[in-house]
């Protein structure tokens, strides 16, 4: 029997049982689309994380109060040290340290000509910005003078919030920053105006793109930090000294001060992301296996229902291999249609999921973070082939059973 006739007979058999075929295809679609979605989202997340840390200098460490958690920038409060100028001086005295840059961080309500949005705020010595972010550049304007307490640099996402028709703020415009803190149980509001002197180019690092950067003293005042720094960026003499400096900090401060490197943070986050990806991929594969079991059930039922037909086919001369091929082509068709639809739906679903799962930034305000999925063609082909292979494997047993039926026994069955 030539392949065209084989295909035609198998296709007719599937069409004859439309509802069951569609439900079986649906199972494969669900499985393969789930794997495609999860793969795409994982790849997107991995790329997003890499982008975040690629913007940072290779020789910097982040130091915060208490033992730093590698999976987040948050620090535990127990047994932690308040970072003040004394600590800064001690850090500066460490060997292999070329610079120590303290920071205040927080979130504020920004107001620009009646428009408001929440934004992260970073107060830092503006002359040290490029130590942390060597590739920092400006769309317009330039950095703040070290003594200037009323100027601000604004990140790209603050200037151009997603979905907005016009810029939130332009160069030279005054913006109002409102911060709140609690003092003796009372909520205190601090309002301060800043002139935008520089607009940062998009860096890909959401922490920077969603931030407003102001002078250290201005931040101390606005955020009511009382000279207690939130974070210190330490520049090691060379990237090779980063680990040594980290050990020195641990040696000097123990667990009261935590130091970590962008590389370590990224490694842990990537590891966590990979763990998640492996887990969700497993869920997807389980869904695919469930789909395969569906194919076994469908085709097995089909063999039982078509037993007389199989007997007739054998009586008129069909070889065992022809019967085997007929059922395998059915499984293959289910697999091809299911995997193809699943891949397409998975790609669409990935984009929809990335929009649905858009999250608020972890530190302070700014527009939500949207991490687009990334669909690597080779990964899509792998998922497609996996779905198809599972479908064909699932069809093996019913097909084999059909091919081995005795024609006489098959013809006798009602």
């Amino acid at each position, binding site marked *: 029997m030539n392949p065209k006739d084989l295909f035609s007979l198998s296709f007719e*058999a599937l069409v004859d049982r439309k509802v069951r075929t569609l439900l079986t295809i649906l199972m494969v679609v669900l499985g393969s689309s789930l794997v495609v979605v999860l793969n795409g989202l994982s790849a997107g997340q991995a790329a997003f994380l890499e982008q975040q840390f690629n913007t940072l200098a290779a020789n910097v460490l982040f130091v915060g109060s208490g033992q730093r958690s590698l999976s987040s920038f948050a620090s535990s409060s127990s047994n932690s040290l308040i970072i003040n100028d004394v600590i800064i001086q001690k850090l500066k005295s460490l060997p292999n340290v070329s610079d120590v840059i303290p920071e205040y961080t927080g979130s504020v309500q920004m107001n620009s000509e009646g428009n408001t949005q929440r934004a992260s705020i970073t107060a830092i010595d503006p002359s040290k910005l490029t130590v942390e972010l060597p590739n920092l550049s400006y769309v317009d304007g330039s950095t703040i003078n070290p003594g200037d307490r009323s100027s601000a640099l604004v990140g790209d996402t603050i200037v151009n919030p997603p979905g907005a028709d016009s810029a939130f703020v332009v160069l030279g415009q005054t913006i109002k920053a409102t911060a709140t803190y609690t003092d003796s149980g009372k909520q205190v509001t601090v309002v301060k105006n800043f002139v935008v002197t520089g607009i940062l180019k998009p860096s890909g690092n959401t922490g920077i793109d969603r931030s407003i950067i102001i002078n250290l003293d201005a931040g101390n005042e606005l955020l009511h930090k009382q000279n207690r720094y939130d974070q210190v960026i330490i520049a090691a003499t060379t990237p090779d000294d980063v680990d040594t400096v980290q050990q020195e900090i641990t040696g000097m401060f123990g667990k009261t001060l935590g130091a970590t490197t962008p590389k370590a943070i990224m490694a842990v986050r990537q590891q966590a992301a990979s763990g998640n990806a492996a887990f969700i991929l497993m869920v997807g594969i389980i869904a695919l296996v469930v789909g395969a079991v569906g194919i076994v059930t469908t085709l097995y039922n089909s063999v039982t229902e078509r037993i007389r037909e199989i007997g007739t086919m054998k009586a008129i*001369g069909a*070889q065992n291999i022809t019967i085997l091929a007929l059922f395998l082509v059915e499984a293959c068709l289910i697999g091809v249609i299911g995997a193809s639809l699943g891949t397409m739906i998975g790609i669409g679903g990935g984009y929809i999921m990335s929009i649905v799962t858009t999250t608020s930034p972890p530190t302070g305000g700014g527009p939500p973070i949207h991490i687009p999925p990334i669909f690597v063609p080779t990964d899509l082909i792998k998922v497609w082939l996996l779905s198809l292979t599972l479908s064909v494997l699932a069809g093996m047993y019913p097909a084999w059973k059909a091919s081995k039926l005795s024609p006489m026994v098959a013809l006798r069955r009602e």
Partner: protein
Amino acid sequence: MTKDLVVEKSSQKEIVDNSAFALRVENLSKIYDSTAGRVVALDNVSFAIKKGEFVSIVGPSGSGKSTVLNMVGALDRPTSGKIFIDGIDIFSLNDSEIATMRNGRIGFIFQSFNLINRTTVLKNVKLPGIIAGMSPDDVNFRAVKILEALGIADKRNQKPVNLSGGQQQRVAIARSLINNPTIILADEPTGNLDTKTGDDVFDMLKMLSHKFKRTIIMVTHNPELAESTDRSILLRDGRIEKDVIN
């Protein structure tokens, strides 16, 4: 296989040229062993059928008619004995060769038609040709010609399920003819039809035998139909009781 065969014919013995036979059955036995006991379905049955002969196999239920037909159709293997179709010992062949033998040299007509209802009449008729690997043009040409000869060419694009019983059996007859087989095996071909339609179908088989020299073996319960064939083999308890030229 080349030696001449002695055939019992109404208690006369006749030496017949071997090449004239479409089918030879030699000492065929079939014994079923089961927990219920040993059942001898066929006991040393021998007969031969000449090319172009229309033979009926008759007998009461359990006489072994269907067992003979299954053996001749190579659907089942005997406990002992041999069957030759076109001089070929069919049970010396492996399963794949037997399938090829069924496809090329045996045509089947079933009591309940056994057509594939999801596909067209034409495709049903073409199916043995498709399995044989016949070219699409050839198989199409032959199928249409046969359907025309059987008077149902206008139904070629319909599904069998939409046809009457008689028309469906004609489709089954057409299917049995597509590969120009040596023998056509008809298992109660009129069993599911009313008398008038059954007679029409029988007449069609008779016409195929007489006009187109087809060798037909028909199992039937109907003594009147059996008498209208060229020869009747009466089976009882797995043995040939009578072999009569009508």
